[in-house]
C-alpha cells in the first residue's frame, strides 16, 4: 500500500506545484493520474521516488517513510520502483542491451558494474526484452529505434528492477494512438500478471476508462477527483479539465 499524505511541493521560483495532495493506492491497483498540462502530474510521480524533493508531507510505502529515507536506504527503495518516462530517457549512444542492463544497477556490485555485468544479468535483460517483443534489437544503438521501440526499451529497463511499483509519467504522450494502446497493454499485463502496482499519468479520458482501476484527478496541484473511472461524469470531467473542455477520443 502506498500512502501519500499532504504532499506539497513548492519550486524554488515559488511555483506551488502540489498542494497538500493525499490519496492511497492499495497493492495491485492500476491508478491513473489525470490532469491538464501543468496540473502537477510529473511533479507528483517524481516526488514518490524522490527524483524531486517534496517540500512537505509524507509518502509511506508498505510502512516505510520514503520521504525520510536517505543515501543507501533511498537507493534500496528506488530499486523496487520502476519509472517510465514520456521522453523515454534512454542513453542514446549506448546499445539497447546496455540501456536495459542499466536498470539493474541498484542490485549489482557497483565496481563490477563499471567493468561488465554478470552473465545472468545479461540473460535477465534478454528475457525482459523478449517480454516486450524486441529481443532482436538488443545490439542496436538506442538512437536507431522508433518511438514505440524506445518506450519498450524503457519498460524492459524498469522491469530489470523487479519492481513492485511502477511509475509512468505520460508514457504514451509522444506516441501515436495505436502505439499508445500497445504500450499500455504491456503495463496492464504487468499489473495483472505480476501484480505490480501501476501509477500512470495520462491525458486522454478514453485511455483512462480502458485501463484504469482507479483515478486521481489533479488540477493546479490539488486533488479534485478520486474514484473509479466510470464515476467520471461530464460534470466531473469539467472540474478536472475546466469548463470549456470537450472530450477527445482516441481510437
Amino acid at each position, binding site marked *: 500500500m502506498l500512502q501519500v499524505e499532504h504532499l506539497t511541493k513548492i519550486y524554488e521560483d515559488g511555483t506551488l506545484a502540489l498542494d497538500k495532495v493525499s490519496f492511497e493506492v492499495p497493492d495491485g491497483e492500476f491508478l491513473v493520474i489525470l490532469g491538464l498540462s501543468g496540473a502537477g502530474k510529473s511533479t507528483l510521480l517524481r516526488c514518490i521516488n524522490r527524483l524531486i524533493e517534496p517540500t512537505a508531507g509524507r509518502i509511506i510505502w508498505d510502512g516505510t517513510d520514503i520521504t525520510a529515507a536517505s543515501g543507501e536506504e533511498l537507493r534500496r527503495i528506488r530499486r523496487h520502483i520502476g519509472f517510465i518516462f514520456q521522453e523515454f530517457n534512454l542513453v542514446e549512444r549506448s546499445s539497447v542491451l546496455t540501456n536495459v542492463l542499466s*536498470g539493474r544497477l541498484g542490485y549489482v556490485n557497483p565496481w563490477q558494474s563499471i567493468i561488465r555485468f554478470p552473465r545472468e544479468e545479461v540473460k535477465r535483460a534478454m528475457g525482459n526484452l523478449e517480454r516486450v517483443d524486441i529481443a532482436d534489437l538488443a545490439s542496436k544503438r538506442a538512437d536507431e529505434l522508433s518511438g514505440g521501440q524506445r518506450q519498450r526499451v524503457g519498460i524492459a529497463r524498469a522491469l530489470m528492477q523487479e519492481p513492485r511499483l511502477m511509475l509512468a509519467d505520460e508514457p504514451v504522450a509522444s506516441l501515436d494512438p495505436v502505439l499508445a494502446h500497445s504500450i499500455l497493454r504491456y503495463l496492464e499485463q504487468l499489473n495483472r500478471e505480476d501484480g505490480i502496482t501501476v501509477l500512470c499519468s495520462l491525458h486522454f479520458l478514453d485511455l483512462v476508462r480502458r485501463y484504469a482501476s482507479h483515478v486521481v484527478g489533479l488540477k493546479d496541484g490539488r486533488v479534485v477527483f478520486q474514484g473509479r473511472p466510470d464515476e467520471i461524469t461530464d460534470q466531473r470531467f469539467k472540474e478536472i479539465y475546466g469548463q470549456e473542455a470537450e472530450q477527445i477520443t482516441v481510437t
Partner: protein
Amino acid sequence: MERKKPILSSLLSLIVPGLGQMYVGQLARGAVLLLAIALTSLLIHWRESNFLFIGIILAWLWGVWDAYSLARGRPMSLLPPFLIIGVIVYIIGWHVTDINLVGLVTDVADIKPLVSDLVQPAVLERDIETQEAEIIFESPCSDSPPDKGTPLEDEPYLIILDKTCGEVGETFTIEGGNFWPSSRGQIWWLNMAGEMKRRIRQEGEYLNFETDEEGRILPLTIVAPVPFGEARGKGPQRSRVQALLKREVGALHLSRTFFLVVDKMMETIFLALMATTVAILFAVPVSFLAARNLMGGNPITMGVYYLTRTVLNILRSIEPLIMAIVFVVWVGLGPFAGVLALAVHSVAALGKLYSEAVESIDPGPIEAITATGANRLQTIVYAVIPQIVPPYVAFTVYRWDVNVRMSTIIGFVGGGGIGYLLQQWIRLLMYEEAGAAVWAIAIVVWALDYTSAVIRERIV
C-alpha cells in the same frame, strides 16, 4: 518660426556636419554623419591624399541639404554620402596595401624558378663523386715563395704558370690536367688549414672552368683574393687554390633532404601529439569547472565558472604564434617551446569545446539511471560518460589535426618541427629542399584531416 527652422538647421549643418540633424531631434542620424565625416577626414589627412577632400565636401553638402529637408519633415536618403565615404575608404585601402595589379601580371615570370623547384622536391638524388687538385699562392710575396707545382702522371694536378705570389688583386694563371674530360668545375679559395673556404668570384660571377677532351684545364687567370684569417695584412700569407669537379654517379636513391624532412615531420607530429595530450590532461577537469549546468546553483561555484571561462577566453585569444615566441624566449629554440605554446592554446580551445559538450548533456538519462537506484558513480559511468566521450574524442582528434597544422607555422618562429627547417631553406633560397618540406606538410595534413574526419564521423 516654422519657416526659420529649415534655414537654421541647414546653417548648423554647414558649420558642423550633423549638427542640424541633431538640432531637429535626429540625434543618432546627426552623430553618425558627424562621426563618419570626421573619421574619414582624419584618414585622408593621415594619408595626405588631399584631393579626396572633394568627396568629404560633397558628403558634407549633402548633409546640409538633408538637414534642410529634415526640418521640413522630408528626410532624404543618406546612401549617397555613405557611398562617397565608402569609395574614399577603399581608395585609401588600395594605397595602404600597395595593391599592384600590373605587377601581379608582369612579374609572374619571377616565380617560375621557385615554382619549378617546388614541384621538383629534392627527394631523390645520386651519389656525388669529386675530383680535386690544389696549388699554393702567397700574398704578399715573401723571400721564399711556394713552388709552381709539377704535372703528375695519373692524378689530377694544378700548376701555376707565372708567379706563385703577389699582392691581393694581382693576377696569376693556373693550368691543370688528368681531370675528367669535358666536365665543368669550380675554383675554391681556402686557408692553409682548410677549414675556411669560399668560391672565387671574378667580376661578381663565380669562376668556373670546363676541361677539354683530354681532361686538361686550359690556362685560367685568377685575380688574387684576400687571404683568410687573423694574419691578414700582417705579412706574407699562404692560401690554397683548389679546382673541384663534381659528378653524379650510380642509381637514384632517397636524398638526405628526404630523411631530414621525414625526421622533422615526425618531430612535428609528435610535437602536436604531446601538446594535445598535455592539453587533454588539463582541459578535461577544467571543462567541468566551465560548464554552467554543473556549476550553477551556488554563488561560489558560479564564481569559479566565470573565472574559468574568463581565463579560457583570454588564453584562446592569444595566437599560438605569439605564445611560441614567448616560450622560445623562455625555454629556448626547439620543439619544447612549440609543445608549450600549442598546449596552452589547446587547453583553452579544448576546455571551451569540452565544457559545451558537458553543457549539452541530456539530463533525462541521468534522471532515469538515478531512478533505478544506481549510486552516483554508476550514474556518471552509465549516463554521463556515454554522452560526453564521443564529443570529447571528436574534438580531441580535430584538435590534434589543427595542432599539426599550427606546429608547422610555429616552427617559423623557432618552435621546432618541420616549420623551422622550411623557414631556413626558404631564407637560404634552397627551394628544392623547401619543396620537399612543403610536400611533406601537405601530405601529412591531408592524411590527418582525412583520418580525423573519418574518426569523427564514426563516433558522433
